[in-house]
């Protein structure tokens, strides 16, 4: 009697623990290296856009040109694009490996040299942008256009439009 009651009690307890613990373990499971790299590089791109957006606005005449603000954004962009992004593009984190979470194409890892050189072009464009940003709206607009092309040249070949 008591043995069966204890047994019953213990089985119910075990089931309860399992019901609570399994999903909790799943919830608290550490994201993989690949998942982290994906969210971090997407955030890195968003950080670039945060500084590039206002400069684009000034270049297009949608925002009034402000030499000081433009210079500050351009300095940030120059610093940001000095960052080595190699670690953000870990193998196994393409859109083929992680569909729906990234737009990075597998071709990045097949043509790493070309990818790196596109990123180098961006760095060069940002150095030029930092030199032009304080020199008036016209100079800024030209440099923004060139930098935009450097972004586009990489997205065109290494990123899909849709997830």
């Amino acid at each position, binding site marked *: 009697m008591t043995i069966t009651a204890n047994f019953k009690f213990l089985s119910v307890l075990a089931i309860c623990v399992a019901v609570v613990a399994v999903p909790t373990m799943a919830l608290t499971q550490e994201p993989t290296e690949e998942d982290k790299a994906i969210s971090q590089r997407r955030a890195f791109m968003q950080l670039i856009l945060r500084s590039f957006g206002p400069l*684009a606005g000034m*270049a297009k005449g949608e925002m009034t040109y402000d030499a000081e603000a433009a210079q500050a954004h351009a300095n940030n962009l120059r610093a940001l694009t000095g960052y080595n992004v190699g670690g953000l593009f870990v193998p196994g984190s393409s859109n083929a490996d992680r569909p729906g979470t990234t737009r990075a194409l597998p071709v990045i890892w097949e043509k790493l040299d070309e990818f790196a050189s596109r990123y180098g072009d961006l760095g060069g464009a940002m150095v030029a942008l930092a030199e032009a940003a304080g020199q008036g709206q016209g100079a800024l607009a030209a440099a*923004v256009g060139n930098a935009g*092309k450097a*972004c*586009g040249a990489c*997205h065109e070949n290494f990123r899909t*439009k*849709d997830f």
Partner: protein
Amino acid sequence: MANDAEHSTATRYIWDVPARLFHWLLAALVITGWILGEFGPFIKTWHFYCGYAIGCLVVLRILRGLFGTPPHSFGSFIYGSRATLDYARSIFERAPSNWPGHNPLGGLSVIALLAVLAVQVSTGLFADDDILNKGPLAIYASTGLRSTLTAIHEINSKIILALVALHVGVVLFYLFWKRENLIKAMITGHKQVRK
């Protein structure tokens, strides 16, 4: 017979000024807008302006199709499958169609062109290159929807290219094979048609 070579013909005023203005404005804007989108300056301001103008023309044309009179109303140039097949069978005859307006296949091409342009303009309004070109409605769409519509904008631009090439090709086919000058009719408005 849908396309009897024996029929007697007369010259009639078919394409009025709004129709011709619409046609050539649309042609110029689509070509300009397409080239600006694909090869133009990276800042796409003029591409947007072309797109808005095309959007206005398409809306006006749809209104005319719904509420206008023949040969402009949709009802007057959307034929049944029977008439369309009859026309398609006779298309290789080496004789002018002398059709008083859009023939059954031409009518289909009008609908197809308006449809792809409507898709192009509406996806363009939400398109975003994530760099510095953003359609005015992009901020109202989620990242996922925005990227899907931007992808459609690119794919559909290729479909437009194909349909425009087909359109021009068929007009040249009428000119050289069927010896019917549809281009002149779209310039002067006067067309040789069946009585």
